[in-house]
């Protein structure tokens, strides 16, 4: 857990990552908030807040008396969201740092290609 962001947001992101990576498949049951709390060593109320965030977004849904499940279409929706954020979160900082060092966009593109080959 990193200290700069609320823990419940990080819990939600961890679950999202697991869904995107396919570790949690659609319509499968996610661990209980108590299990999350024990695993990440956090207060159960914090874990619940993270899970609730994803319920509100329709990524998870609740089956009464059974638990939480991954909604159908959750993986695609998360991928779309992440793609939209990719530019501001990764490309922009990369370009800023490159500009600081005098690396032009063509040189940068060559570096990316090279790195990809390696």
């Amino acid at each position, binding site marked *: 857990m990193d200290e700069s962001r609320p823990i*419940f947001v990080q819990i939600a992101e961890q679950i999202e990552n697991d869904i995107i990576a396919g570790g949690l498949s659609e319509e499968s049951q996610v661990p209980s908030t108590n299990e999350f*709390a024990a695993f990440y*060593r*956090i207060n159960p109320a914090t874990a619940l807040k993270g899970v609730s965030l994803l319920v509100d977004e329709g990524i998870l849904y609740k089956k009464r008396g059974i638990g939480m499940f991954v909604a159908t279409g959750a993986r695609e929706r998360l991928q779309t969201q992440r793609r939209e954020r990719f530019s501001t979160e990764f490309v922009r900082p990369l370009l800023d740092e490159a500009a600081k060092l005098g690396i032009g966009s063509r040189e940068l593109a060559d570096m990316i290609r090279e790195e990809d080959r390696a």
Partner: protein
Amino acid sequence: MSAIIEVTGVTKTFGKVTAVDDASFTVEENRIYGLLGRNGAGKTTLMQLITGQDFVTSGDIRVFGQSPVENASVLQRISFIKESQKYPEDFKVKHVFRSAPWFFADWDAAFAEQLIEEFRLPLDRRIKKLSRGQLSSIGVIVGLASRAPLTFFDEPYLGLDAVARQLFYDRLLEDYAEHPRTVVLSTHLIDEVSNLLEHVLVIDRGRIIIDEDAESLRGSASTIVGTRAAVDEFVGARPVLHRDAIGGLASVTVAGLDAAGRSAAKAAGLELVPVSLQQLVIQKTNTTEQEFEASA
């Protein structure tokens, strides 16, 4: 949610020393609270007042809606694990666990046995012969296995090694999840427990200076690092909690930076460093109110 502890305008003086100074707060049911503060800040005195082991000088304390003093119906629902628990002379470890069920209605003997094994506590040894860490283990086990509706741990882990402390945190979380109850954890090892806490009370020189949700506290301060001019310009009129400078660089901790403030700082070429709960408490308890206001 209902308050099971209500502290209203409580002051406790010992001669000329004011140990608790006009403290008011409530503790809600089935949450884990952190009671944090420096040594001598008044943590233990406050817990002694709440558990009816001492009398307030002025103010009012209600626990489960009643005064705790000499009140059996309140006290039997409380487990108070103290840093320096005294046991009868010649007591062996096993005697503690044999007598504990007399005091706690919800005592779970099987859980106690499991913990004794995990903490590797020698049952047949005399208490006098125990190491400091083993003595702390007894307190931790009694506090957990008693499952009291209101449990206080006052610096419960003096002498406990890192493995045993982690074991305590893990068992506390697991058991709390299964058997929700109110836990007040008093400690100065803030970083270790910060993720376990739902609510934080910070006491400094007898006064409650922070009474807030752990989550909102976490986002309540950021440290900004950069060239002195850039930092000063960014900080502007924001309330400053702490300021450090070296050469041309400055590091300033400010309160309440929202998402817009964060991106503004980044755009100004400033670095944002997260402030842990422990750092926040240190900074808040190091700074006097006057300094705080003057620097703002």
